[in-house]
């Protein structure tokens, strides 16, 4: 079922694949102007927001059919915006894109041909996507209720007026409960930033699967097998996230000519053949893993 995904990738210029496009160098030739239809939808708050926006744009309900109808636009949006995004944003979108493509692929397939296990996994992925979409929609609707209330409430001002002096004098003495030293200690704590300002966001969210690690696993396996189908290569993945990471790892390896792809039919099984060096260290950049981009950059695309 990843055949379609690869096809989508290879049908267009391969450097425009969103994660690769996140490299600073690739931004110039990215797919924004690559013709076809353009998506005039700005500032989406993540993949669910975008999906809802697209579905609403076509005046559709949230169904499997409508999902498959907006899949292309969803991908186009990622391609158009990819260069401006960081890895974190991109990965959220990619995960949804992966499911959308799977669903669309499944709709094109004669249903009998789908094997049970995959079928089940796909149904699960679909249900999960629906549930999350509906969940997000619920919060979005409630957020607009919040906005309304905030606006309404901002027109009412509470009485916050100091007490008349004759009453203020009656207030019991304040109990600080601490002495000067403790007071100073507390002040020092308040003045000390809780987290150094320089570190922040990047490492708070650790990707659940590391592309480089996945590449090592794949290389290891392919050195032994020589050739395998993608399905076999991802059979032991713990979750969607890992499947995607492994797929990205394969694309990276393809870029450095460590593997070759073969696919008989557009939706057929994807065969991966090891073409790399059996001894040399694997050359896979770590730009997927949230490290500072730009160190191991090589734009020598095949």
């Amino acid at each position, binding site marked *: 079922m990843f055949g379609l995904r690869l096809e989508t990738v290879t049908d267009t210029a391969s450097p425009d694949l969103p994660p690769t496009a996140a490299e600073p160098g690739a931004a110039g030739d990215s797919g924004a102007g690559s013709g076809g239809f353009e998506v005039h939808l700005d*500032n989406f708050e993540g993949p669910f927001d975008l999906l809802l926006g697209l579905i609403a744009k076509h005046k559709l309900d949230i169904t499997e059919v409508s999902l498959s109808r907006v899949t292309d636009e969803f991908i186009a949006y990622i391609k158009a915006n990819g260069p401006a995004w960081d890895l974190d944003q991109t990965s959220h979108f990619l995960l949804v894109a992966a499911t959308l493509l799977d669903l669309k692929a499944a709709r094109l397939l004669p249903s009998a041909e789908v094997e049970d296990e995959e079928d089940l996994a796909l149904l699960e992925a679909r249900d999960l996507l629906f549930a999350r979409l*509906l969940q997000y929609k619920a919060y979005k*609707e409630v957020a607009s209720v919040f906005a309304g209330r905030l606006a309404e409430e901002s027109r*009412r001002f509470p009485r916050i007026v100091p007490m008349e002096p004759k009453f203020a004098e009656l207030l019991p003495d304040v109990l600080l409960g601490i002495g000067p030293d403790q007071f100073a200690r507390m002040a020092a704590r308040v003045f000390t930033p809780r987290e150094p300002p320089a570190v922040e966001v990047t490492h708070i*969210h650790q990707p659940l699967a590391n592309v480089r690690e996945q590449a090592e696993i794949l290389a290891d396996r392919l050195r032994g097998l020589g050739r395998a189908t993608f399905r076999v290569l991802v059979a032991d993945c713990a979750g969607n996230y890992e499947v995607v990471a492994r797929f990205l790892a394969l694309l990276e390896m393809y870029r450095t000519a460590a593997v070759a792809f073969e696919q008989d039919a557009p939706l057929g099984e994807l065969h991966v053949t090891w073409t790399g060096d059996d001894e040399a260290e694997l050359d896979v950049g770590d730009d997927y893993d949230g490290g500072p981009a730009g160190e191991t950059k090589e734009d020598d695309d095949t």
Partner: protein
Amino acid sequence: MSADVPEEPVTDLRAALEAILMVIDEPVPATMLAQVVERPVDDVERALWGLSEAYTADGRGFDLREVAGGWRYYTRDAYAGVVERFVRDGQEVKLTQAALETLAVVAYRQPVSRARASAVRGVNCDGVMRTLVLRGLVEEAGAEPETGAHLYRTTGYFLERLGLRDLDELPDLSPFLPDDLESLEETTGDQTRF
């Protein structure tokens, strides 16, 4: 207006409450008021509601409301235009869509971690959460035992800003949600994100 309606007299209890409410600078619960005036809470609550309704019926420029667990005077929204010029703190900055959505997730899921909130929205919300904390709408509420991740909850100021008595007054979310959300919860808990 009240000219032709026989108005309920301002009882001594009501007047005493009016006097106290005039000196407070934060919402005061009916129970606390009841203690001070030495009357049953029920009587006090009835008197407070009575006052509030009378102010509204008379079209007064102020309003008595129960917000964030307590009672306090507010100006009536119709007069926001003239009042604004006297209010020192000025206008609140409007929240972004991202902030509103994150606030909604925190409100209904509290206490909730940033990772969980990010998962619901499909977007990293670390920066937005910081903004909400800075605005005083959200505060830290301990850590998740398993992961050590900070948890967040809404504040009393959040209730004030939304004009809610308490969290029970949040609009019901269930009509919008899929039926099997419970099971979904489990999956997202494991995966952290989609």
